[in-house]
């Protein structure tokens, strides 16, 4: 018990107790301190900025997840047979270590109206795009977050792939199965638990994309990349803590659901 005490105290003070207070606050008015039932929740769910942030976050997840998962799987499968797999894996992981702030200027350079990406587009005969102040900002955000997370996800896939016994696919090969057949009947079914874990973890990570958006586009980005954290920062500086507490509880609910899915997957793995 003495081992756990300091940690439990700190967690209680900085996480559990104040969260309980946020929960309580979500039913009260900040200024007067009166009980107001579900008024804050109704205010939040009819708030235009909140709905925009929810829509953008949902849209981001809907694009980011499938693209990341497919790309990282193909990459992992492709490099899993290579001799220098470990080196390649490490290089792909590097973006995770790069502080986002260090690349702000490079991103600007690449995506400014007269920048390199537009240069490539012009050479290909396409029209130039003003990336950071149009709906294309959304694409830049998805792209830069995939850049950041690709190596991480490839690493998780490779762990799953190396867990499949090679004797299984060897035996299938002896029986005359082709590459695609082995993929369909042996590799993919065996990777189901890995895929499940990767999906949930990537979903949770997609809530952390604010950093990229903020550093490239600042506190007031194009509306296509206006995220929940932008809104929270706004409410915070305007001291609208009642709205903030209701929205906190709502987001908490979504994350809680995702985490319990993840824990169920882990339990299943532990029993298998």
């Amino acid at each position, binding site marked *: 018990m*003495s*081992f*756990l005490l*300091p940690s*439990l105290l700190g*967690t209680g003070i*900085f*996480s559990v*107790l*104040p969260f309980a*207070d*946020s929960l309580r606050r979500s039913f009260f008015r900040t200024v007067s301190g009166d009980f107001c039932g579900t008024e804050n929740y109704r205010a939040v769910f009819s708030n235009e900025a909140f709905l925009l942030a929810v829509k953008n976050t949902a849209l981001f997840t809907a694009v980011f997840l499938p693209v990341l998962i497919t790309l990282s799987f193909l990459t992992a499968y492709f*490099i899993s047979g*290579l001799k*220098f797999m470990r080196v*390649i894996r490490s*290089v*792909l*992981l*590097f973006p*995770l270590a*790069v*502080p986002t*702030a*260090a*690349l*702000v*200027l*490079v991103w600007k*350079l*690449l995506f400014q109206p*007269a920048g*390199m990406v537009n240069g490539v587009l*012009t050479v290909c005969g396409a029209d*130039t795009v003003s990336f950071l102040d149009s709906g294309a900002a959304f694409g830049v955000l998805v792209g830069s977050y995939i850049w950041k997370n690709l*190596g*991480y996800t490839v690493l*998780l896939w490779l*762990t799953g792939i190396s867990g499949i016994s090679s004797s299984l696919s060897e035996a299938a090969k002896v029986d005359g199965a082709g590459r695609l057949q082995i993929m369909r009947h042996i590799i993919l079914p065996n990777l189901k638990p*890995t895929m499940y874990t990767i999906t949930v973890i990537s979903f*949770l990570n997609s*809530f*952390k994309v*604010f*950093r990229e958006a*903020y*550093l490239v586009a600042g506190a007031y980005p194009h509306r296509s990349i206006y995220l929940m*954290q932008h809104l*929270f*920062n706004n409410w*915070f500086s305007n001291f609208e803590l009642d709205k*903030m507490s209701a929205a*906190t509880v709502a*987001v908490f609910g979504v*994350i*809680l659901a*995702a985490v319990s899915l993840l*824990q169920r997957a*882990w339990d299943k*793995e532990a029993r298998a």
Partner: protein
Amino acid sequence: MKKLRQISGHGAAALLCLIICSPVLMLVNLSFQDSLELSKAFVPPTGQDLAMPDMLPLFPTLDNFGEILLESPQFYKVFWNSLGIAAAVTAGQLIIAVPAAWGFSRTKLRFRRQLFDLYVLLMLMPFQVTMLSQYIMLDKLGLMDTRAAIILPAVFSAFPVFIIYRSFCSIPEEVLESARIDGAGEWQILLRIGIPMGSAGIMAAVVLGFLDLWNMVEQPLAFIRDRKLYPLSLYLPMLDRTGGSILAASAVTLIPAAFVFVIGQDKLEAGIIASAVKE
């Protein structure tokens, strides 16, 4: 045939690696260019629509680094401030998380499982959810706008507990049992057996923790007003000056992270796997 496939496979993989690394290579390249050459990268030359940077510095120069490292005391302060914050958090995390992870892995406490599930839940919460809670407490303790506002909540992060717990669990119980028979106390067992045998997990927590701290944006943005206390990751985008010095500052910011990434490579990969997949 098989050899040919390996060669072409490696060629394609090398290309992918190059693409992935290209933003960083571009940063390094630009940070060595002089102001004349840099202006081409940012503003199109007269009569042209596009600004294309040179792919290699025509006249490599250290002027940008000189400007930021020698002539700008501010940058120097912010850099050490960031390192100080990272060091304080890491030390605090170890002091708190190592015993806690030991407690979770080795004691038969009631509600142990439920408590651990709670830690996992907290570990996975994005800052949006924890922001208000942290603010309520920091405000009550009068810590807003101090370094402690970003250090203290990070010290009690659940993440290092989780990673270190995983490595403690793999220590066989028999080893501890024999130490107990020899009369060692529980704290002694942790210090003499637990920490050495779980060092891989502890290092993984340090490496992952440092990379995350070195990149922090949300916490200082919310809890710190005084720009003198900003860490590099937030100070950098505030620099108004364009051109050379800010590129050099970015490159210098990259160095500690790249250094930790390279020396902590194996630990980092083991830590990521341990944090996502249950063995």
